[in-house]
């Protein structure tokens, strides 16, 4: 009788240790996702900060491109208005990326602008921020993938269900961006 009792207690302790272990690894992965998201967020905010400077800088040179400016400003405020929904946010941010690309493509037509030191450094900053966003996005998606794998696999899926771990969505890349850019002459 005593040995059975002892065996049950040992089994219980082992079970609890396993559950704690799984719970902790889930928390670690969830925090990795949150941290990766914070990285993206920092870079997106930096882009919001840089855009007014850019507009201010190019305004004098590109008077005929008012439409393009307005599109950039509009896309910026739309992206800033989106709060927690990752899907909507990634769509808005991708739209902003598109308008910025357009602006830089048009700036090629203005040789005086291309000689402006301030513009060149802003261009480098924005291009680098775009890079950082895309690198942070891959890091975020990697983290989400590892978290979802753990969350869906047995036996950690039971623990995840028990403690109500929530889902995180991927930061999607724009469908148009995926296709190679076609150059026509």
């Amino acid at each position, binding site marked *: 009788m005593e040995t059975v009792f002892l065996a049950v207690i040992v089994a219980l302790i082992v079970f609890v240790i396993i559950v704690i272990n799984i719970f902790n690894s889930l928390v670690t992965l969830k925090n990795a996702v949150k941290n990766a998201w914070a990285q993206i967020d920092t870079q997106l905010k930096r882009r919001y900060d840089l855009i007014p400077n850019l507009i201010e800088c190019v305004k004098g040179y590109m008077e005929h491109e008012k439409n393009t400016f307005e599109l950039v400003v509009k896309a910026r405020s739309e992206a800033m208005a989106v709060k927690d929904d990752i899907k909507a946010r990634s769509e808005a941010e991708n739209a902003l990326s598109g308008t910025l690309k357009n602006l830089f493509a048009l700036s090629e037509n203005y040789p005086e602008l291309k000689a402006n030191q301030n513009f060149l450094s802003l261009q480098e900053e924005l291009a680098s921020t775009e890079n950082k966003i895309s690198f942070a996005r891959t890091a975020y998606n990697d983290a989400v993938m*590892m978290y979802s794998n753990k969350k869906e696999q047995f036996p950690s899926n039971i623990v995840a269900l028990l403690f109500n771990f929530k889902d995180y969505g991927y930061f999607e890349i724009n469908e148009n961006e995926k296709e190679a850019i076609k150059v026509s002459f």
Partner: protein
Amino acid sequence: MWFIIESNKRKTAIFIFIITIFLLFFGAALGFSFSTDLYEKTYYGTAIGAAISVVCLIGILIYINTNSSKFFLNQADAVRVDQYSMPVLYNIVEEMSISSALGFIPKIYLIDSPVPNAFAVGVNEKNAAVAVTTGLLSILNRDELQGVIAHEISHIKNKDTLYLMYAGIILGVVVAVSDAIIRGFFRSSRSSKKGGGPALLIALILALISPLIVRILYFTISRKREFLADACACQFTRYPTGLASALYKISHYEPSLESNAFIKGEKLSSNKLLSVMCIHNFLQADKIRKREFFSKLFATHPSVDDRIKILKSMGAADVEEYAKQFSIVVANKNIIPKDKLKKMNVDPLAIAIPAAMAMSVEEEQNNVLKTRKTSQREAKDAYKKAKNYKIIKCDCETVIKLPPEYKRSTVICPHCRQVHEIK
């Protein structure tokens, strides 16, 4: 990437364990050979020798963990630059820290040398740093520089830097200790004429061959880590062509006549400890290219031609693809065990780079020659600024840069002879 770091940690631990036993034995043998024939004294001498070697080892480990980064950077005569003096370089380093999920941005150092090279030191936020030469900045474009920085950040991320520092310094100690044993052996055999018995003989043989073995071990692992860092760099940049073209340019660097004399005394290439850590080892490059057996055995870096070949033949940009091409180019070897490869998760968004998009290396070379002069001047200016040079703008648009050693109170413009006061 996690399993690479795990296996690196394990290998470093094994390496340190082996070295500790080595040193313990050396210390014991040294103590043994120096003590006299009395049984008790020999016993104590052996124990004291072993104890001293362990204390030395602990001292070395503490030193490495506290300020070895500074030691290496000082050796290379590197100065720290920030985001304001080198914005592009800083951006690239930040990009790669994000992409590698390093969690912090390593410090950036600049070395004033025309020879293109780069190295990394440290493992954590406090001591990690990436150092590049002004020559490197002047011959590479942004994508290539990104490849090089990604390679260096992989070294930090995979903790290769820690391993190289441990191994490098311990290798030096093993060489010194075995030297001492050989000398101690001859001294004791001369004075006592009896010889130390079989134990001493074994110690002597070990002392003769161990530096050799440690060196081969050290360089084999160091070569493997260069490949691994290349593989990780591809994963981080998603653009293997950048690193390939950077390696091509670095390895085909030909010094101009006036800088040739300077290179012979150049710090990164001539300093043995530093040259192991650099992205390309100029000292050994020619020997490795000839593929002589012994020079390959003692090479710190793999053949740069092999490295470029692997990078150029990659169809996708991740570690798995690198491992595949690696096994084709460097036959019969696997850089990552096959069972571990399956565990790697490949990012669904990784975009394969079409071969046609990659510009040929020669074409690139021509493009860069045009911009070479300006970017070198930029890099040199940043170096001078970091070194506290005084900058005076003359009315004739000449910019005069004065080193901090310049002590006079006035300077004459070399173009218009105007006299400037120095504040």
